[in-house]
């Protein structure tokens, strides 16, 4: 810790927690810059913590001096001294860090960083500043082959996989925007899977290109963050009307407007649900962990293809840039999400002649045929103007418009029968249930485990499908006395479930650009029950 970090983050440390400071960084000028008028190391204000003062800067300088590193340059290696120290403190193996440093840096900088890292580790071992090292037991992981995966890479790979599983080329139209750009970068590396990526002139064009590609028979995808979702609204509405598969991926960030572009928030549920003109419902899928972005992308594509509908896939900055160990799936176990193109005429007139009717629906899914250019005999026109059900010709007839609005809504509603039912984690007989979605998963998971270990019953339902909601959700929610909905917004899902099920759900909100901590959620549970 330096004075600035101390000031910003001390509130996170529990009483009697270990506080390691770089004592070289507490000169008068450093204190003044951080806004201290006196030295907090000497005024007793840190007495309730286990304060350890280490002159990290000068120790790093001494460690690197024999290499010929200048004192000022040595400062840049001091983070590795701290990392070495912490590695000792938590009994971590040093080899992975050493090989990482060796692969990442070159020449003198590499040597300097290695020297600082080893000096930090050895300092922990030889000094008697700490009473004992800690050992964190390895997490209990399911046996299997693992990789470390971030949400955006998992999502990009999920799109590649979706293309393979659908036997369709993936077409990504995208415009750079934080924190979604990495998906464009990642997908552009995988052209050998037949993936086409196009960096468009703007968000609108990116969506339009993806929709054009979908019309032409590709898996059309566009990726963006909040402001881009607003710009893509009109194209998404057209996709609703055209009834074509179309995937809109929103990596949510703090809003409105530019907001907090590098910080996380999950406040785009409303725009995903309602951000179109006219009656334009569409399915919404939300990823809950970095690795889950892979499955969520496949699931979103599955729904889009099967039901010929735009789907919005929600992730957020926390998932996008966060990473976790991922037990690799066997590609052979992934679902087949392919759908056939229509190649034959589908309607016989009373006089025996055959026609192609582009809006003649599958009676079960209500999906319309997907006949792509190049298919002889099935030439047809689609457009944003209301179409006659079946024939697909322009129709301004009042009853037909009503019918089409209802059919499009019914098509989306029926997807509830094609998604997993909501399940309860924890105590089904608890008084309180947490209803979560998206990246709050990890914090809720920890809060539920700790609450239950402390002897309080609590239940948890985590949603991966936000529209339509699982068919059994209302019944489940009504079986609890209290429904708490933790969200990184002002209570958007909470209002939806209140409206949908008339349950007295209560929001637990946070809009600081930060994820929930499990402690915050534990407190919310206890407060509800007290």
């Amino acid at each position, binding site marked *: 810790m330096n004075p600035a970090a101390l000031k910003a983050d001390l509130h996170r440390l529990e009483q009697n927690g270990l506080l390691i400071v770089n004592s070289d960084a507490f000169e008068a000028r450093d204190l003044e810059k951080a806004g201290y008028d006196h030295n907090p190391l000497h005024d007793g204000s840190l007495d309730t913590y286990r304060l350890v003062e280490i002159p990290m800067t000068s120790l790093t300088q001494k460690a690197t001096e024999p290499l010929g590193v200048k004192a000022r340059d040595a400062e840049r290696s001091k983070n590795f001294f701290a990392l070495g120290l912490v590695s000792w403190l938590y009994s971590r193996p040093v080899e992975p860090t050493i090989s990482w440093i060796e692969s990442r840096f070159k020449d003198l900088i590499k040597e300097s960083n290695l020297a600082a890292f080893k000096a930090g580790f050895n300092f922990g071992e030889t000094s008697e500043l700490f009473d004992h090292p800690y050992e964190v037991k390895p997490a209990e992981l*399911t046996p299997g082959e693992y990789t*470390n995966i971030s949400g955006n890479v998992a999502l990009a790979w999920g799109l590649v996989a979706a293309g*393979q599983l659908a036997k369709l080329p993936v077409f990504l139209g995208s415009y750079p925007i934080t924190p979604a750009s990495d998906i464009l970068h990642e997908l552009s590396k995988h052209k050998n899977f037949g993936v086409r990526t196009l960096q468009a002139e703007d968000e609108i*064009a990116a969506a*339009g290109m993806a929709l054009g590609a979908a019309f032409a028979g590709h898996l059309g995808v566009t990726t963006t963050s909040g402001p881009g979702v607003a710009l893509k609204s009109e194209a998404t509405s057209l996709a609703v009307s055209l009834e074509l598969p179309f995937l809109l991926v929103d990596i949510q960030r703090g809003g409105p407007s530019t907001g907090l572009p590098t910080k996380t928030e999950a406040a785009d549920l409303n725009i995903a649900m309602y951000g179109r003109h006219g009656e334009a419902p569409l399915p919404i899928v939300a990823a809950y962990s970095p690795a889950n972005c892979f499955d969520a992308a496949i699931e979103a594509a599955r729904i889009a293809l099967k039901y010929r509908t735009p789907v919005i896939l929600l992730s957020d900055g926390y998932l996008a840039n966060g990473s976790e160990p991922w037990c690799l799936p066997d590609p052979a176990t992934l679902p087949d999400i392919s759908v056939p193109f229509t190649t034959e005429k589908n309607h016989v007139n009373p006089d025996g002649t055959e026609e192609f009717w582009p809006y003649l629906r599958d009676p079960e899914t209500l999906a319309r045929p997907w006949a792509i*250019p*190049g298919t002889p005999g099935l*030439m047809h026109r689609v457009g944003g103007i209301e179409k006659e059900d079946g024939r697909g010709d322009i129709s301004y007839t009042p009853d037909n418009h009503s019918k089409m609005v209802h059919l499009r809504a019914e098509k989306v509603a029926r997807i509830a029968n094609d998604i997993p039912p909501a399940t309860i984690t924890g105590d089904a007989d608890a008084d309180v249930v947490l209803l979560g979605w998206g990246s709050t998963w990890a914090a809720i998971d920890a809060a539920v485990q700790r609450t239950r270990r402390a002897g309080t019953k609590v239940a948890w339902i985590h949603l991966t499908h936000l529209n339509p909601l699982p068919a059994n959700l209302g019944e489940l929610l009504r079986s609890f006395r209290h429904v708490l909905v933790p969200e990184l917004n002002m209570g958007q899902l909470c209002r939806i479930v209140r409206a949908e099920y008339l349950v007295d759900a209560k929001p637990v909100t946070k809009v600081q650009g930060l994820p929930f901590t499990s402690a915050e959620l534990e407190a919310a549970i206890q407060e509800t029950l007290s």
Partner: protein
Amino acid sequence: MSDVIVPITQKKDWMSDQEVRWCPGCGDYGILQAVQFLMPELGVAPENTVFISGIGCSSRFPYYMNTYGMHSIHGRAPAIATGVAVARPDLDVWVVTGDGDALSIGGNHLIHALRRNVNLTILLFNNRIYGLTKGQYSPTSEEGKVTKSTPMGSIDHPFNPLAVALGAEASFVARTHDLDRKHMMSVFKAAHDHKGASFVEIYQNCNVFNDAAFDEVTGKHHRAERMIDLVHGQPIRFGAEGQHGVVMGTDGQLRIVDVAEVGEDALLVHDAHRADPGLAFALARLSHDDHSPTPFGIFRSIDRPDYGGQVAAQVMQAGEKKGPGNLASLLRSNGTWTVG
């Protein structure tokens, strides 16, 4: 050597069963006829042809063609068509748009489709007015134009569509007009056959909201004196007897002259294949109003790699270099470890 194409279709094969609903007398009818007459001559099949439009009167066009088609979003047709053309380089993709659709709400997509050189044939129906919304001025309306939204006259400086396209370095740029089917067909054919983005401005009369907007140039009594037919490799001259011509002055300005005064050798020879778009730009700006001599025909036609072809080439190159995509390998590409 002959490049005569034996028609595999007839005009009727290209006509949809939809009733054409433009206002009686609209210039759009003539353009639709020209396209439907032309299609059999192109030797292409309706199922491999896609018409994409935006919003506006002209954008109803796809409904009348028995091809694949999409009537899309105001201004976005070039972007949507880019998606179609890049996904499927095997298709013939046409964009039908208007002056408001292409140059106002969709200006961005138009210039980017042109600079990328996406293999599209873009037909811009320029009637210098908003017809569908019943008579507001458009980005090509002349300054001072009195319309419903400009009762004191428009103060907007108009776009010159060809200058915009040339500014974006479009590889094919041409102008024609709705009264001359033969000319339209020849220009459309050249635009279609051009690999890359082809941009054709069509002077189109809106007889309801902006009647006779081009009459002073394309009207029967003015044609001979005011329409300049650009022919590649030929001196640029016009007039009933070919008595007028175009020269480039020492100051770099194009000027209209009497051939008798300067001699035929002084005339500018039209070169549509010049790499530099500067001369085509100057020709596009030869006329500054709606009653001076105005060039028609192909201003520019140069070879430049088309976008969809390059995208396909990269996909193929990646496949050759890395082998076909293997999902199991991809998932392991960042290193793995095993938990036993």
